[in-house]
């Protein structure tokens, strides 16, 4: 678990003068479920393709364990890929699709048969051996693609937005299933997605990327609770990001109100970004807080109500989530407990436009 199985050192790639990856460094631990997360165009798929051997970096080294594999062609690498659009062989049935890799290696028929049966059982498709892939649903095709990739006993499985084409319910089921398969086989999964919820629910480690640069590497709780910059905070979930001034350790001012927080180590009166998650905002009578605003819209979301609040002097409306609905047009007060105020160094980019880059 502690050894690095894949290491990328100073990887750079550009197409037509556009920088896709900029001196990327990444170590992936053996047996981990690692997710590369970011908007499209952030370089996550390119990173995966470099590991898979489908693309050569302009510069930098790729290591598999301690071996440099830059010059090792894709078909000789001990890793397999689950492709975005499954890429099943249309002329072969389910059995032969899963057997493909073993046929290439000229394994014995008995060995192939046993392995295919094991793999189809793993993805709950036993009994589908003779079916043509075109008669399967999207979810079933995805399972065949996973079984096919795993039948080669890879040490690392690469997954390129494998659930993108499935509907929400199926996607949730497959998330659970993938996690189960990964912990059962104990191999490394490198998973690419732009869906932050998917990343949060499956990964051991999340690598947030933007514009070919890694923004933050950490566990899902780290990434969610302690985003390192505004981009991560905004991308990983809806957030209120406002300008603030750090007067002293644990003393921050934003929206004209001073709050107690838990962050230390900033310069005196340093300008910072303050992030508050919508679910962390507590609604109080307007007299009880300096942070006040008018409710402009209320939307029922199932488990909670989502409300937008116009705070005088702020460019963006605040977004808050609560199980109690407020009346539209009502003036309310808002407060946040110190632990839920996240202070970050100023991010120079524009979060909104970065995300819409997608």
């Amino acid at each position, binding site marked *: 678990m502690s050894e690095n199985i894949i290491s990328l050192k100073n990887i750079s790639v550009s197409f037509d003068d556009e920088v896709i990856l900029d001196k990327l460094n990444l170590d992936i631990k053996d047996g981990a479920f690692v997710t590369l997360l970011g908007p499209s165009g952030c370089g996550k798929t390119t990173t995966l393709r470099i590991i898979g*051997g489908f693309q050569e970096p302009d510069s930098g080294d790729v290591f598999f364990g301690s071996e440099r594999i830059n010059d090792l062609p894709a078909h000789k690498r001990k890793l397999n*890929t689950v492709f975005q659009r499954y890429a099943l062989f249309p002329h072969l049935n389910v059995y032969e699709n899963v057997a493909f890799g073993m046929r290439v290696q000229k394994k014995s028929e008995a060995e192939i048969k046993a392995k295919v049966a094991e793999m189809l059982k793993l993805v709950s498709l036993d009994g589908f051996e003779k079916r043509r892939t075109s008669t399967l649903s999207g979810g079933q095709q995805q399972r065949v693609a996973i079984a096919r990739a795993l039948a080669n006993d890879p040490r690392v499985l690469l997954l390129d937005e494998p659930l993108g084409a499935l509907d929400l319910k199926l996607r949730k089921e497959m998330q659970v299933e993938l996690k189960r398969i990964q912990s059962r086989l104990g191999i490394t999964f490198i998973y690419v997605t732009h869906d932050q919820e998917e990343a949060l629910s499956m990964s051991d480690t999340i690598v947030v990327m933007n514009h070919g640069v890694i923004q933050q590497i950490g566990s899902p709780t780290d990434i969610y609770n302690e985003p390192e910059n505004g981009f991560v905070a905004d991308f990983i979930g809806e957030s209120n990001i406002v300008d603030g001034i750090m007067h002293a350790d644990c003393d921050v001012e934003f929206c004209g109100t001073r709050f107690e927080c838990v962050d230390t180590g900033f310069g005196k009166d340093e300008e910072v970004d303050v992030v508050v998650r919508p679910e962390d905002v507590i609604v109080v009578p307007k007299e009880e807080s300096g942070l006040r605003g008018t409710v402009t819209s209320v939307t029922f979301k199932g488990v909670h109500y989502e409300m937008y609040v116009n705070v005088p002097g702020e460019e963006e409306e605040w977004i808050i989530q609560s199980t109690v609905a407020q009346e539209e047009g009502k003036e309310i007060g808002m407060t946040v407990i110190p632990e839920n105020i996240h202070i970050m160094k100023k991010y120079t980019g524009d979060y909104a436009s970065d995300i819409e880059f997608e």
Partner: protein
Amino acid sequence: MKKDSWLASPFMVWVLIFTVVPLGMVCWYAFTDASGAFTFENILKIGTYWDYLKDSLIMGAVATALCLLLGYPLAYIMSRASWGAQQTMMMLLMLPQWMNFLLRTYSWMTLLENNGLINNILGRIGLGPFHMINTKGAIILGMVYNFLPYMILPIYSVMEKIHDSLFEAARDLGANRFNTMRRVVFPLSLPGVITGITMVFVPSVSTFVISQMLGGGRNMLIGDVIERLFVGAAPNYNVGAALSLVLMVLILISMAVMKKFDDGEETGGLMM
């Protein structure tokens, strides 16, 4: 759908006048004698023409095999090239087809003649002259030259639809170039190959222009025999019609065999 079917009526009339009626006439001639009485005589006479029929089938098969050998790699290269390169190659392939078929074959005559262009050039570097015109080789060359595009196009059109991701998936699963070719590209291109074979074999077997111009009348094919029976010095429509019918049946059988092969591949997964 049903109420639009009248749109097909002009075509139906066309088919009736120019396919069904003539075919009926061929059948009628094939099974009657000069006086119009029913007979099997004409069909039984094909034994005397067996050698021509055999030659036609063999040369047609050789030409088809050569077209496949030349056309398959080219179709593959075309299908994997950039869009612009694909268009250029397609243009170069189709360009000669815009010239008249007879003219194209004539030009091969002047090239292949004993004192033609090829022997002329070879003579200057001290080779030859070679006897090339009026041989079976010249006829096969003519067939390959004229029918090669009909092999390439159907193969290209199926190969072009093979998505790049399938090549990547094959590589990902450990297949090198050869294995990718054998296990992915070839099986997926088979429907195109079968169409190509049919489209080259049928006109090759029944040609008479190519054999007359490049074979000099000394290498008669079944097409030449049939032509003579209709427009030669001693016409015999009845035997000519019988031979046409036999040739047509042979071609239908070979196409049916091919089709069967194709279907077998298509449904192979289900039958297994």
